[in-house]
């Protein structure tokens, strides 16, 4: 507590200091958030202001099989990619936590896929997935495992698997490095105590590592789910939603309808439809944080 006598002063100074950030966020974040919801109830087109049409956009979308497919795709993409990112990320974090030569160098380069612009690494994947020149197909053919080049992005299910693989590739380092930071905060004495108590490595993982790590897992995975759910760049580069809309996510469909398609109102409605799912994820995160406070008891402060 600082001088309570400065209370008034402090409130005023606090407001003054908040002003630049608050102004930018209110104008360019809060207002458009509301505007987006409002646009979803209008028939606004590019270059033409819209009229209030109530739930018409949503009624039409409800019957639109492409929109329904995009919801399915978004969930499939989010769930499968998140599970993979979590499993592989945790495994990689455990590997990186071991003693080994060039430890810090290895840790540093592991994060490269995450820091390179997604669009640019997606272009590399586009090339890797090319129907005619894919190096993956080339290797598989040379090994005699297949006799025809794989059309990675041309078949609906293959395209889904390929985009999920690319997303996982980018997300695993993020999960791994965050979980590694969590692993390093677990005191070694806990493992020493556990091993003296006769716990096997598997039991140590199950009874020490996982419970100690669970708060950070909750937060990291919420972020991961959130970013995967609203992903746009990767899909846009690799497939633009194709083939036959098999990889359209809600975000890409929203863009497609609103910008090249010109139907801003409909696009906004699709974007708004993502909000309930995001809220659910945020609530999950909030309770994850609550749990964390409870778990740490008094040791935090």
């Amino acid at each position, binding site marked *: *507590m*600082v*001088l309570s006598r400065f209370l008034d002063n402090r*409130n005023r*100074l*606090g407001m003054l*200091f*908040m*002003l*630049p*950030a608050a102004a*930018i966020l209110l104008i*360019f*974040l809060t207002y*458009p*958030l509301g*505007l*987006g919801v409002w646009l979803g109830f209008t028939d606004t087109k590019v270059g033409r202001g819209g009229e209030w049409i109530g739930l018409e956009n949503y009624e039409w979308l409800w019957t639109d099989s492409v929109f329904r497919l995009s919801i399915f795709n978004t969930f499939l993409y989010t769930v499968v990619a998140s599970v993979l990112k979590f499993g592989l990320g945790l495994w990689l974090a455990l590997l*990186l936590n071991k*003693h*080994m030569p060039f430890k*810090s160098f290895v840790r*540093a*380069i592991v*994060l*490269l*896929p995450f820091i*390179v*612009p*997604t*669009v*640019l*690494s997606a*272009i*590399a994947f586009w*090339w890797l997935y*090319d129907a005619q*020149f894919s*190096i993956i197909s*080339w290797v598989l053919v040379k090994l005699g495992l297949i006799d025809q080049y794989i059309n990675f992005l041309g078949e609906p299910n293959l395209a889904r698997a390929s985009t999920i693989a690319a997303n996982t*590739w980018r997300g695993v380092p993020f999960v791994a490095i*965050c979980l590694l*930071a969590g692993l390093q905060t677990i005191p070694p004495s806990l*493992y020493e105590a556990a*091993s003296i108590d006769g716990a096997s490595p598997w039991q140590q993982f199950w009874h020490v590592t996982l419970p100690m790590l669970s708060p*950070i897992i909750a937060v990291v995975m919420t*972020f991961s789910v*959130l*970013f995967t759910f609203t*992903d*746009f*760049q990767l899909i*846009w580069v690799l497939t633009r939603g194709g083939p036959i809309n098999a990889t359209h996510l809600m*975000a890409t469909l*929203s863009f497609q309808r*609103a910008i090249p398609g010109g139907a*801003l109102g409909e696009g906004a409605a699709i*974007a708004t439809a993502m909000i309930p799912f995001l809220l659910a994820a*945020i609530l999950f*995160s909030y309770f994850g944080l609550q749990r964390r406070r409870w778990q740490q008891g008094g040791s935090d402060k």
Partner: protein
Amino acid sequence: MDYLESLPRRWVTVYIPLLIFLFVLLFPFYWMGLTAFKPNAELLSSNGNPFWVQNPTLDHFKKLFFETSYPSWMWNTIIISVISTFLSLAASVFAAYSIERLRFRGSRQTGLAIFLAYLVPPSILFIPLATMVFQFGIFDTKWALILTYPTFLIPFCTWLLMGYFRSIPYELEECALIDGATRWQILVKIILPLAVPGLISAGIFAFTLSWNEFIYALTFISASENKTVPVGVITELVEGDVYHWGSLMAGALVGSLPVAIMYSFFVEYYVAGMTGAVKE
């Protein structure tokens, strides 16, 4: 208890899985680099070893720099990233100090609001923002991006800096107060010097986020010479069905280099920024 583990066992449980991870994570970069230096003839032939380049060439880079607007995309991206990063950092320092240290009435709620703002994804904001950008008459200008990037940079930087400010003991400020410093002097002479690592973390992370941004740049910019690198590469280098893989990869490589180089210098700060934002 690593000493009990035999070397062959460590190979199976640690080194081999790790090498596979590294191979998968790094191969696309190798492939990107290799393709960028391969002449077209080699790219399209199915003979020879595709994992190496026989006659390396700089043709793709030449094409990139002299036959496309790539240099101006680069320049645009640098200008936009630098300005929006500095703008956001400045606003965030004041906001974070205000929330974390001035503790004005409602600061807790403001802190929570900042965190929630951090979770609002660009993919639900780009349509309303596009209409606003149009109304403000800044469509297809750098300002469209400089003003909208702070919507994700400020929440991130503020959140990160709040964590850093929290780690600075209160007594330092109280002591400075007794020593006769004003609020402004405390911020400038005590808090900011001590928060330099946090400022670096937030700064480079914000720069990377701006550099990587795609959906706003794709939506708000239409003229070729105004585009940023990620948008330019994907929209301008692809002509019809003929993909110029060589120059595409060269463009991706050159566009990744600035962030990769900066990352290599500030790995620790970068990791601290990333994990710090998640931990708090």
